């Protein structure tokens, strides 16, 4: 049996009459990159929101490391090891890049470490922030406020903030949306290097080609239903997927 990090068991979410998710089951193994693809409105972001506790699941279960985390408060889920980024970047506009990396480490250490000046009370947190700053190549913008940064860098800051929390699983919601080729490749390389550190990634993406040579496994959502899954090649050649996804999204 495989070593599952994240397991979703028949998760459903209904908004009014819309079945945004219908009994979706999927798994993410430790240390791998798994992709979720599907057309607009398929329920991909909703799935992330349920996993992270932003939305309450109407039924089904979410397990992290064989522990039920279904419908926990968001901060408890984060602390148990799931960090995420957002489809529409959500940084803290008035805070600097450096401050983003510190604030995300709130659950490391005692209350005194949190109350005293971080620079001398918690050198470990600063070291971690420095490390992540370096990893994401953000040292040059260390003291810039988030709102003053270009879009591509904001995306990287958001990823960096998630990574500072030392999660076991990273959820990325369309991390390269709106990026040019070069920026997207940059993010791809970062993801591969993150995987090497042992981090598992669940990735939402529109662009089929981008996930093809990145993910070890793909799930395809359409109207809240899991219509296909498998290796990227299997999924690419699955007629159901071609019908539902590629045909419809040919212009993207």
């Amino acid at each position, binding site marked *: 049996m495989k070593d599952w990090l994240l397991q979703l068991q028949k998760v459903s979410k209904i908004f009014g009459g819309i079945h945004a998710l219908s009994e979706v089951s999927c798994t993410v193994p430790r240390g791998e990159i798994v992709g979720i693809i599907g057309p607009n409105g398929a329920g991909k972001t909703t799935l992330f929101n349920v996993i*992270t506790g*932003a939305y309450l699941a109407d039924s089904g279960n979410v397990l992290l490391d064989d522990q039920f985390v279904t419908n926990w*408060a*968001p*901060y408890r889920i*984060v*602390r148990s090891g799931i*960090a*995420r980024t*957002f489809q529409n970047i*959500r*940084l*803290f*506009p*008035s*805070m600097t890049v450096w*401050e983003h990396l*510190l*604030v*995300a*480490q*709130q*659950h490391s250490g005692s209350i005194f*470490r*949190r*109350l*005293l*000046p*971080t*620079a001398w*009370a*918690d050198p470990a*947190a600063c070291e971690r922030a420095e490390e992540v700053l370096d990893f994401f190549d953000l040292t040059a913008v260390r*003291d810039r406020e988030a709102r003053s940064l270009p879009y591509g860098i904001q995306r990287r800051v958001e990823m960096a*903030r*998630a990574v500072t*929390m030392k999660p076991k699983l990273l959820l990325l919601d369309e991390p390269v949306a709106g990026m040019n080729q070069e920026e997207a490749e940059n993010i791809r390389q970062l993801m591969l290097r993150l995987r090497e550190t042992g981090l598992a990634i669940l990735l939402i993406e529109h662009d089929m080609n981008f996930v093809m040579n990145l993910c070890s496994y793909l799930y395809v959502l359409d109207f809240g239903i899991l219509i296909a899954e498998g290796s990227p090649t299997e999924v690419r050649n699955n007629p159901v997927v071609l019908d539902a996804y590629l045909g419809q999204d040919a212009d993207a």
Partner: protein
Amino acid sequence: MSTYYAGLFADAGILLLGALSVYIILATGQLSLGNAGFMGIGAYITSYLTVMVGIPLTPALIIAAIISGIIGVIVGFPALRLKGIYLAIATLGFAEMVRSFLLNFDTMGGSGGFHGMKHVTVGYIWIWSGGILLLVMILERSRIWLEMRAVHDDETAAGLVGLNTVAIKIGAFGFGSAIAAIAGGLFAHHHVYIEPGNFGFERSVDFVLAVILGGSTAAPGALVGSILLVFLPEMLRSLADWRMAGFGALLVIVLLVRRQGILDRALLRRLTFSKAAS
């Protein structure tokens, strides 16, 4: 120092504490228009303790701060459901509740007011004001403060990066209330007479005004705002009857030129050189 100026400095010190109490709550994105209520609670508890129970002022202030802090936490919970203008109005309602309770609270003089406190010097007041200002400035360099700012900037995102937003907002409310209570205790022992009318809506507005004017993104802003708010009307005495109009005009001008208030983080960084040229 003449008694006249000493009185003004005492007022500024007390206003600074009130402004800081608003500043801390505002740092999490919550606007409280009810801090005069907590100030009133502090004034009455402290006076009760020193006059009726007979304990020294310093421990009395600390006890009052703790009690007011707890009340702040209790008030903070229902306030969690409210945002922006609705929260401001709810806190205003709370302060009015406190005021009308005090009006009918005959043990402490009711509408007739209460006296018998021993006068404290401006120096003693500023030990508290300066000390708490310093404390807040140290706190501003801590992670808890970053957590508060994160809640201020985007509460949902803050929750989703692992912050316990409820605890942070309630905690800020409690801390702010405790500081307002100290302002009240000092006020009572400086003026040696209190009545419920001392803790009305205008005083809550003064606190907010000092923060907005001085700058709401750095604690020293509250200091600048408090000093200006107390001394500026004095300097405009030559305008006689037009004094308050002149003062109001100045306020409007400052806020038009510097919407973020006189001090902000960027300006403060430049002033203190805390960062080497970036």
